[in-house]
């Protein structure tokens, strides 16, 4: 089974919820009771069309204000794939939700209102999806029905966006442009007769043809140990298994591995998933590994291949996305969670703030506020084993936790 997770980004009123509702409707994923509820509410509001945005706008506060305030997850499936859409809000103050949604997605839809074209918000949405290295980006130029399905307008917006693309850091990101009308259904699931000049695929066709494995980060195998399994039963008296998930690449029986931080060498003896044993643990699989030698490995340690060590250090510089109303100031201490490993981190220096609209950087910064993105150096109380984010999406990222509130207050991408 293939699962594709897609993040959506768009400004208020770009029609994001309508687009998702349209996808659900045209793929016949809206059940009759949900459709009934949408018909009823649309009628109550006096609309002469179906307000599909009602399919996703879940919370009472949102219905009152008519905006999406948090990440919502929407599910549908086709014969080919299971889809998860992370619907993230587009307004300026909710950068943190967009970062969150993009972090777990392999594809993203950036919505542009054809009447407005590329606006400052579009820059931000693109910046964040590029920063988070989301492999596939669809630029959906929406509300084409309101600009008479004009090819010129579509081309103008596409050209503007391409200018923006020159500024991107992650060049290998695949970007596809599609003219759509979410409200009327053009080029969403069904190809439109109104855009004869458009020779590409519909939004759904594009996703259907994506290779979900290809969009995952292929790196070098990293196996952070989550939990040590010791049954202590008669049958499994000496069993000592390391439970975890394989990130990047794969691990096989017989591979020579090094346990970090002890740097002790051993060989993979068995790979289990439940009561089945496997020759190879593929990337993203949750398995239990046993080693030939009885070495000391505990939670937070990492197994890696002997010829492929990550950086082992107590200091690094990262691009961080700050998500808390309490400011980040030089000298502040946080709990830094890197995978399943937790250490203490001190803010050593804030180098500069990065404007997520591609308008440049700002130096001599003393504090970071909610939604700021900045380059920051951290010093740690213990070594961690990391890769640059550009090489390894999982082993190059971390979160910051405030030890007073216990909240997740920031996310970082190691440079």
């Amino acid at each position, binding site marked *: 089974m293939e*699962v594709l997770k897609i993040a959506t980004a768009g400004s208020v009123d770009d029609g994001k919820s309508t687009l998702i509702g349209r996808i659900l409707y045209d793929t016949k994923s809206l*059940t*009759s*009771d*949900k459709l009934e*509820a949408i018909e009823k509410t649309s009628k109550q509001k006096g609309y002469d069309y179906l307000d599909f945005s009602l399919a*996703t*706008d*879940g*919370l*009472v*506060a949102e*219905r009152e204000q008519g905006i999406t*305030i*948090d*990440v919502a*997850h929407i*599910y549908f*499936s086709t014969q080919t794939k*299971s889809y998860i859409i992370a619907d993230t809000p587009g307004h300026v103050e909710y950068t*943190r939700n967009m970062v*969150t949604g993009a*972090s*777990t997605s392999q594809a993203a839809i950036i919505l542009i209102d054809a009447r407005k074209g590329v606006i400052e918000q579009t820059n931000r949405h693109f910046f964040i999806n590029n920063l988070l290295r989301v492999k596939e980006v669809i630029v959906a130029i929406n509300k084409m029905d309101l600009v008479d399905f004009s090819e010129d307008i579509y081309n103008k917006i596409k050209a503007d966006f391409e200018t923006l693309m020159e500024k991107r850091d992650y060049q290998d990101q695949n970007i596809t442009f599609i003219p759509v009308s979410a409200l009327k259904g053009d080029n969403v699931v069904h190809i439109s007769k109104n855009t004869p000049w458009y020779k590409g695929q519909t939004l759904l066709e594009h996703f259907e043809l994506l290779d979900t494995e290809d969009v995952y980060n292929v790196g070098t195998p990293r196996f952070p140990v989550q*939990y040590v*399994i010791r*049954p202590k*039963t008669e049958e*499994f008296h000496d*069993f000592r298994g390391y*439970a*975890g*998930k394989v990130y990047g690449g*794969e691990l096989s029986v017989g591979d020579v591995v090094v346990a970090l931080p002890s740097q002790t060498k051993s060989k993979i003896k068995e*790979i*289990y*998933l439940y*009561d089945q*044993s*496997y*020759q*190879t643990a*593929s990337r*993203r*699989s*949750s*398995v239990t590994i046993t080693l030939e030698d009885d070495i000391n490995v505990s*939670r937070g340690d990492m197994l890696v291949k002997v010829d492929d060590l990550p950086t082992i250090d107590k200091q690094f510089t990262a691009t961080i996305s700050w998500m808390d109303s309490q400011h980040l100031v030089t000298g502040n201490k946080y709990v830094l*969670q890197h*995978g*399943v490993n937790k250490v203490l981190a001190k803010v050593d220096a804030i180098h500069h703030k990065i404007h997520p609209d591609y308008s440049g950087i700002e130096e001599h910064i003393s504090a970071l506020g909610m939604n700021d993105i900045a380059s920051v150096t951290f010093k740690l109380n213990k070594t961690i084993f990391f890769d640059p984010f550009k090489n390894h999406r*999982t082993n190059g*990222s*971390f*979160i910051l*936790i405030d030890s007073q509130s*216990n*909240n*997740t207050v920031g*996310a970082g991408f190691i440079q």
Partner: protein
Amino acid sequence: MIKDTSKVNPLENEAIYIIREVAAQFEKPVLLFSGGKDSITLVRLAQKAFYPAKIPFPLMHIDTGHNFPETIAFRDRLVKELGLELIVRNVQDSIDEGKVKEESGRYSSRNSLQTTTLLDAIEEFKFDACIGGARRDEEKARAKERIFSVRDDFGQWDEKNQRPELFDMLNGQIHLGQNVRVFPISNWTELDVWSYIERENIEIPSIYFAHTRETFLRDGLIWSSDDDVVYRDENEVVEERLVRFRTVGDMSCTAAVLSDAADIASVVQEIRDSTISERGARIDDKRSEAAMEKRKQQGYF
């Protein structure tokens, strides 16, 4: 030996990862078990997460006293077979102690009363993490739920102040008195659960399959009249119908659906073809448009 794990369901990999994080990050986790298909799936995933060791936490059932007898019998058998620890706390006790008041009338149900019993049990055992089988596709308030969802001392959900969850990283740090509700199958759909049950050959209570039952109609839904739990008006006519249950909650709030799906393969096919959502047969969600959101804020699952 099987060649590699690339064909393993990505949702299963994710759920096992989450369950292991619970065992590693918390001191007193518990798995909330209702006897329904979602919690039965969770038990299988937990077995897989820790094999060959036993599941390192107990199961807890908040028994409304209005469960289908088939569910209770199934629960007891499963626990015995797997050698698991089961804690049962009864809504009836909360009623007897005067902590909650039984509803009366046509739509009366003990469903919302469970919250008090659950919160009391969490406090009694000092559970810091409760694993549940809720899924985001079930209901729109649940679509916004986190995988690790922090609840305050009163068990309340603050939907506006949820922790962002990035990549695979789950932040389980909490203050004393708080607890976390954990949803390992957040990203599964109803069809995903059924397909998994089919592929893994997991046993489930018989009421999920087609059987004849004494029923009556109300508001277009089919209710069981086999027992005295469900309130029935004099003029509501009892008839025998071939039905099954698509979701197994309380008898008082779970309606049956007409079905001849007698085995798991036909159930999967039925779900695939279905145009009614699962919770469409749950009267507890129909009380108002925001019914689930309100219950969740009060500490319901």
